[in-house]
């Protein structure tokens, strides 16, 4: 039984140690990168300078991503009012495992967001994955302020909504 507890301890250390490490070095300037829009165009992140941006990379097989969409649908009115721009991108190669298409996934878990003016959908490019998500987390988001500074990194928006709300000035 002690092996089980050792495994759990190591897992816990990795999860929370990793998050702590990511948060320690912030804020930093968000690296320049481009993502692929639905039409296949390459769009630079710099286009959104001056806005509070949540850059969210998700995989369509990931349960916390589905839960994240559902939570963001619930919070959409307040987050939109607070001026949050959400760039929701399917991970490069869907995070290494097949799943539903971006359209099908969003229709299923966050259909009201497809028409939301403050939401942009697309896909992570190889270059962007290398800069923002080299470890290929299936569910990770970056909160970038109006000056292009990366203020916070986290995952599972459904479980970390307070971080997002705090970023846009909602308590």
């Amino acid at each position: 039984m002690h092996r089980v507890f050792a495994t759990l301890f190591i897992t816990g250390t990795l999860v929370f140690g990793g998050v702590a490490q990511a948060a320690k070095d912030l804020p930093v300037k968000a690296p320049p990168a481009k993502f692929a829009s639905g039409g296949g165009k390459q769009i630079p992140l710099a286009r959104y300078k001056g806005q509070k941006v949540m850059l969210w990379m998700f995989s369509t097989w990931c349960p916390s991503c589905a839960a994240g969409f559902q939570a963001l649908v619930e919070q959409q009115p307040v987050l939109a009012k607070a001026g949050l721009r959400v760039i929701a991108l399917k991970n490069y190669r869907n995070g290494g495992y097949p799943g539903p298409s971006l359209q099908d996934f969003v229709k299923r878990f966050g259909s009201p967001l497809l028409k939301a003016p403050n939401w942009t959908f697309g896909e992570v490019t190889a270059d962007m994955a290398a800069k923002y998500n080299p470890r290929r987390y299936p569910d990770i988001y970056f909160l970038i302020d109006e000056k292009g500074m990366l203020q916070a990194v986290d995952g599972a928006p459904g479980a970390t909504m307070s971080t997002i709300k705090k970023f846009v000035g909602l308590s």
Partner: protein
Amino acid sequence: MNGVLTGLGIVFRLRTYRITALAIFALALPFYLMTLPSSFTGGRIGFATLRYLDAELTFFALVMAGLLALLLALIVYLVRQGQRARKASASGGVAVGVLTPILCCSPALPIALGFVAGAFPTLVGAIGGTLQGFIATHKTELFSAATVLLLIALYQNARSVAKGPSCRIPGVDTAATPERTGLT
């Protein structure tokens, strides 16, 4: 099967072990109820995960907590009797049940693979996502496997209880029968 029921009967005839099992169940059930849905919270375990409970996860939480309670009570009985308890399957069952939701969508696996990526640079890309995706899309099968491991452990330990302590003399073939030895 009779051996299993006999083993369970021997242990749970005693009030102490009934109370032990109930106490373990009371602790294990909330633990499983909060842990199994943690794939929806990126591996975070707490009261917030309870909102993601559905019928399937509740069923597995009840079954695994129940089996764990019976199993630990049997193990305590065996240890107190000076007998050897079988813990490998039990550990495996608990580990698979708990790690499945944690590993699927948390940073744990990518970070762990990141440590070895220095030696094998392609490992993170090739294995990390594939493994996490597999775990995320096969949760039911993995929870079933954890349940089966706990059942195997329960079976093994209940049979040990039913058999009772064996008196072995070192160096003597205990399987020797009068027929085999020609002493009839």
